[in-house]
């Protein structure tokens, strides 16, 4: 029995329970209707709630079993498979075992046509029979428990049984569980980043990582190096990230985004605004991989040619400028919409006050509106910076992987996100400093964007409240 099949069976059981419970509830209602002429309160709950109660009683235990199945089965089956092998078939190390098991899983799934390890074919057969056995076990356990739960629920039904209260209480449990997902996600991010970073920092000292100026993780495999690790000084990465995301992209995005917002909120005809705003939103909806392709294919060669034309001989075809420019364009709609919000939040009395003194619209905007909206605009820009430094595809495709510490925009720099992608695609060994360094980089990225976001959101929130 497969998990999916068992799931459908459990759902069917619950549906049956619902129907039976509802029938019974309807019978109560009919009986009390005859006795009490339909007086409200004679039967506590409507028939649907009786049905839902029985269904829930059947579903919950069955789903718990299914969840246990989904989580446990891989480990149980693996253990059985490993136990079935001759003692010397696989090495004793975790690494060898995992490699063997993933080959077996691949065979079972049909990913591989032939096995590399001679024992794998046999192990795959064991795997299949073991997982079928466990499937039968867990599947029948789920159905049995579900049946028992449903029956118990059904026997509880009485005219004065508070089925609705029970059902609503289960709904509340479901709601709380849903809100848990967000916390679990945050916790999962923090825990996984911290855990893998901790392993990384056991191999490379934090101070070398944070303050070192040489980044070349590729050499980390060579055993004869000092501490058998490569160079993990992340300063060039931090610099590249700031250079592209916080400097070059913002030089493009802030003036263009701000002026666009000013034009749309202060000058444009409302009809034009109604058209232009959705167009900007569409610009924001273009996937970053498209911007990246565009940056690599069209903008980067143009920037290199321009650099050579103005006499920069070492202009790279993977320049910081190309990535920064395109990222800036990508951020324009974001900056524009934040500035739009900030400007429209300024009370119109402020604008009228200035205009009524004979200020021109541009004087009003520059001297009254923008100063008044400044906290909101700054908050928006900070959020934009946070977005730019976390942006991945544009830099992966257009900025390259050369960890240079340079302020020349025509040179190539690399960023934290580009390195994470480079380190984690291809072969991964989860005990090498090279792979783990990606998580340390991720941790830094997470903390920096988190700080920026919290600060920026607080600024924006305070600003909104100031004018409410």
């Amino acid at each position: 029995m497969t998990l999916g099949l068992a799931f459908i069976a459990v759902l069917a059981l619950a549906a049956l329970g619902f129907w039976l419970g509802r029938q019974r509830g309807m019978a109560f209602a009919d009986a009390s209707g005859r006795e009490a002429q339909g007086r409200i309160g004679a039967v506590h709950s409507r028939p649907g709630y009786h049905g839902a109660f029985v269904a829930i009683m059947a579903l919950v235990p069955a789903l718990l079993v299914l969840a246990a199945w989904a989580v446990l089965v891989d480990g149980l089956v693996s253990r059985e498979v490993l136990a079935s092998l001759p003692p010397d078939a696989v090495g004793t190390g975790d690494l060898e075992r995992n490699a063997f098991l993933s080959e077996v899983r691949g065979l079972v799934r049909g990913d591989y046509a032939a096995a590399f390890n001679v024992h794998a074919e046999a192990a795959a057969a064991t795997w299949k029979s073991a997982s079928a056995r466990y499937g039968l076990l867990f599947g029948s356990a789920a159905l049995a428990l579900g049946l028992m739960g449903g029956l118990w629920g059904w026997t509880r039904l009485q005219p004065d049984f508070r089925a609705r209260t029970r059902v609503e209480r289960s709904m509340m449990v479901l709601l709380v569980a849903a809100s848990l997902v967000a916390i679990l996600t945050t916790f999962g991010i923090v825990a996984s980043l911290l855990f893998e970073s901790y392993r990384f920092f056991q191999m490379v000292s934090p101070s070398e990582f944070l303050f070192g100026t040489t980044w070349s993780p590729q050499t980390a495999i060579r055993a004869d190096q000092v501490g058998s690790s490569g160079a993990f000084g992340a300063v060039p990465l931090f610099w590249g990230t700031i250079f592209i995301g916080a400097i070059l992209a913002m030089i493009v995005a802030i003036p263009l985004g701000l002026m666009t917002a000013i034009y749309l909120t202060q000058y444009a005809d409302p009809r034009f605004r109604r058209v232009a705003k959705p167009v900007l939103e569409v610009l924001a909806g273009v996937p970053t991989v498209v911007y990246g392709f565009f940056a690599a294919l069209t903008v980067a060669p143009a920037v290199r040619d321009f650099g050579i034309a103005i006499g920069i001989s070492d202009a790279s075809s993977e320049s910081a400028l190309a990535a920064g420019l395109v990222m800036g364009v990508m951020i324009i709609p974001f900056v524009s919409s934040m500035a739009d919000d900030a400007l429209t939040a300024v009370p119109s009395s402020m604008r009228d006050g200035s205009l009524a003194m004979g200020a021109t619209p541009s004087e009003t905007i520059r001297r009254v509106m923008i100063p008044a909206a400044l906290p909101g605009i700054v908050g928006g820009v900070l959020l934009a910076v946070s977005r730019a430094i976390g942006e991945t595809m544009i830099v992966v495709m257009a900025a390259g992987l050369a960890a240079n510490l340079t302020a020349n925009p025509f040179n190539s720099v690399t960023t934290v996100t580009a390195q994470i992608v480079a380190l984690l695609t291809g072969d991964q060994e989860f005990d090498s400093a090279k792979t783990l360094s990606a998580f340390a980089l991720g941790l830094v990225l997470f903390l920096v964007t988190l700080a920026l976001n919290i600060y920026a959101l607080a600024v924006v929130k305070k600003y909104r409240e100031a004018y409410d």
Partner: protein
Amino acid sequence: MATELSTAAALRRMPLSAAPTSWASDTMQARIRKRYRQERIFKGLGVLALAIAGGFLLFLLVTVIASGWNSFRQTQVLVPVTFDAALLGVTAEQARADPRLLSRANFQGVMASSAERAFGDDAELVSDGAWLALREKVEADPGVIGRTVPMWLIATSNMDQLAKGRIDLEAAEGDRPVNDAEVFAWRTLEGEGKLRTVLNRTFLGSADSVDPELAGIWGALKGSFLTVIVTLLISFPVGVLTAIYLEEFAAKNRWTDIVEVSINNLAAVPSIIFGLLGLAVFLNVLNMPRSAPVVGGLTLALMTLPVIVIASRASIKAVPPSIRDAALGIGASPVQVVFHHVLPLALPGMLTGTILGMARALGETAPLLMIGMRAFLTSVPQGLAQPATVLPVQIFIWSDNVSRGFVEKTSGAIIVLLAFLLTINSLAIYLRNKFEVRW
């Protein structure tokens, strides 16, 4: 200033200015002209900014469409194919008796010899993958074995580019991807009407390939579809339930604050961090299959969840309290109030937020690279646990390939992706404007 003096008395001692402002003076008039000039410049800057932003979008679209629309067209060559039973290794009778024999038949050899006979061995005109058409032909009618049949076969990518006018023939032979023999063959075939351009079914209907003329987006598209389905099935219910809990039931306490802060920050966490989460938790801890849509969908679900929660909360907030009071007033329980009254009214806003979230998930690349969805896959994924790739990742993979045929295919894939996303986004924006209820 003595306090007992009245304000009026003080004013008389303090003339504001000796004369009224002389607006007609030259300096004042010049100043006003200058101010109006600044006004025009400032407004012009606004128009310019908008024009640059819009112009960039237009430039991007034009560039992509110009280089990509050709990928929807395919060049085919008319080849007289001789189904030689000896070369094939199967006779017509054998094929009729046992069609399974055809899976081992030497169609490649038949195709190669037929092409050589037609065009000589200097010019490579027919794609390596075109033999599949031969097999289909024989499977449909084993009687063709032993006969010579004219067939339209997929041309090589170079011929395709040549026919589409994408190759600079002025360049020296060594500098262009096609040799003189191929150019000559192309001109001859063109003259004889043995080349044709048709709708590119290969591009729309197959998965990735090492040959640009055989590469298609269907595999990636289906992977995207499977992934987004998983994302939707998880993030929509969880997001809506979370929003309901936070807006309608949660007490104002530390716990609620933590949930709120978590959601607001998750909304702004870089997407690649979710990829790291997926890699560390789903792949390494839970041992889920690499490159599978189910893992991609889970990862993207966690990413889009905050978007949906925030949109749903805003839309629940917009439902006026009077409706809740009315329902409570006739004896509905709080849960009934929410599910019978608030939820239906808030649903359009929730759906809009969800659609926007799904559009974002559909265009997302970075987190999926982390969980291995960049595999080179020549088959279309059949299930949620099978290795798959998605359209944005396919674009990323192809963009690495500098050959002309792949540049065209990349742009073609981008056109498809943008068409999907723009449709979805426009739908969401339209819905939002339509259902923007003012209570």
